[in-house]
């Protein structure tokens, strides 16, 4: 069954018709063409589909699209300012934290959620904050370094 849905993604207002059995991940990728958020395991085990929904980090593959009704979502595409990278994105690039890149949007969104909640996280807090995210290429070391550097660089400003 189709329902009309109003929601805000990366500051843009959208009005779309969605089937109620579509997930938020599917609607973001297929209806809005925002393919930065990844379908990686599609069942909540890997964090590749991370988005920020009303300020909270959630797994968009386990969220029905219709549940985003009247809500605000930030996806990976919403971080950069045009072609200028967000400090977290820049830190990932600078620290070698991106290899195949498939898990990177999920990690970067998780990093934003960590720093938004806690501007000065310890390394353990960073690791806990990315505990739902799976990476197969980097071994996590440079990812943690990048998030640590980004937090220090952002020093209180989000």
């Amino acid at each position, binding site marked *: 069954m189709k329902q009309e849905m109003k929601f805000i993604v990366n500051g843009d207002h959208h009005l779309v018709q969605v089937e109620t*059995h*579509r997930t938020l991940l599917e609607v973001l990728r297929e209806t809005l063409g925002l393919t930065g958020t990844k379908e990686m395991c*599609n069942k909540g085990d890997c964090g590749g589909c*991370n988005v920020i929904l009303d300020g909270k980090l959630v797994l968009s593959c*386990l969220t029905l699209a219709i549940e985003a009704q009247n809500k605000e979502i930030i996806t990976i595409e919403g971080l950069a300012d045009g072609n200028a990278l967000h400090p977290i994105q820049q830190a990932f690039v600078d620290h070698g934290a991106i290899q195949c890149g498939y898990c990177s949007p999920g990690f970067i969104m998780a990093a934003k*959620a960590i720093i938004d909640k806690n501007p000065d996280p310890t390394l353990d807090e960073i690791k806990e904050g990315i505990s*739902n995210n799976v990476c197969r290429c980097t071994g996590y070391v440079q990812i943690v370094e990048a998030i640590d550097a980004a937090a220090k660089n952002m020093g209180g400003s989000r």
Partner: protein
Amino acid sequence: MEYYRRLPKFEYLDPKTRDEAIAMLDSRKGEIRILAGGTIVVHQMKERIGNRPFLMSLKLIKDLDYISFDDKKGLSIGAMASLQSIADSPVVQEKYSLLAKACRALGTPQLRNMGTIGGNLACRFSTAEVVPVLIVLGAEMGVVGSEGNRTVALEDLFKELKNTELLADIRVPLPLTQAKWGYQKFAVRDHYDFATVSAATVVNSAAGKCTDVRIALGGVTLATMRAKESEKLLSGKAVTEDLIAQATQLASESGQMRSDVYFTADYKKDLLRVVVQRALKDALGA
């Protein structure tokens, strides 16, 4: 062999009030699957487990999502309160630190943001990590249905909850002021895997002797969650290393577990012994 990427089709219901939800449950007995946070139900739907023609989301029912504390009655949590909000709640952290710790340690940030306490309880998994904790805190469940509201003990929730009823509130009595608690769990990957086994205990003591002892086990069958024999053993006695060892042995023997893909029931029993002993030592300061 079917490999699915999409969810199956269903009729979507989104009641705005408790009464609306109850009316829907009543009119479509057994055909409705309830959606709380989605971390379990949506996952299962993708695997085509437990599908029903109707999916009813509780997300729009505002009075199901709250945390409140009353000096006389204790803590009341709406079934739709997220696990993270419980972990972050100042009153829970202050007065029910065991519950805050268990919620804080469960799953991942996303699963805590999305997952609700009601969903965690109603999912009927013996690995639901809040269950042993709520048992030792003496929690009771507020259930609502067309035939009225009633209170159900947590251990009875699973057999009592009808498919025309809704778990609405979790009520935790006032904490015992002298009580100490212990909570231990084992997971293969910390901060990611669900606990293979866990143990929660609350012990009150007076004049050097245990008065109110509650021990609950996680990762065991629902019927064996309460380690009643261990509780009896410790009750009224002064704590010794030996007594803890005996209570540990009794508890691990009483908990029944099943083998799974990763571990045998025998190994889980070894783990259970370890978490019970460590939880008891935490609480009893041995």
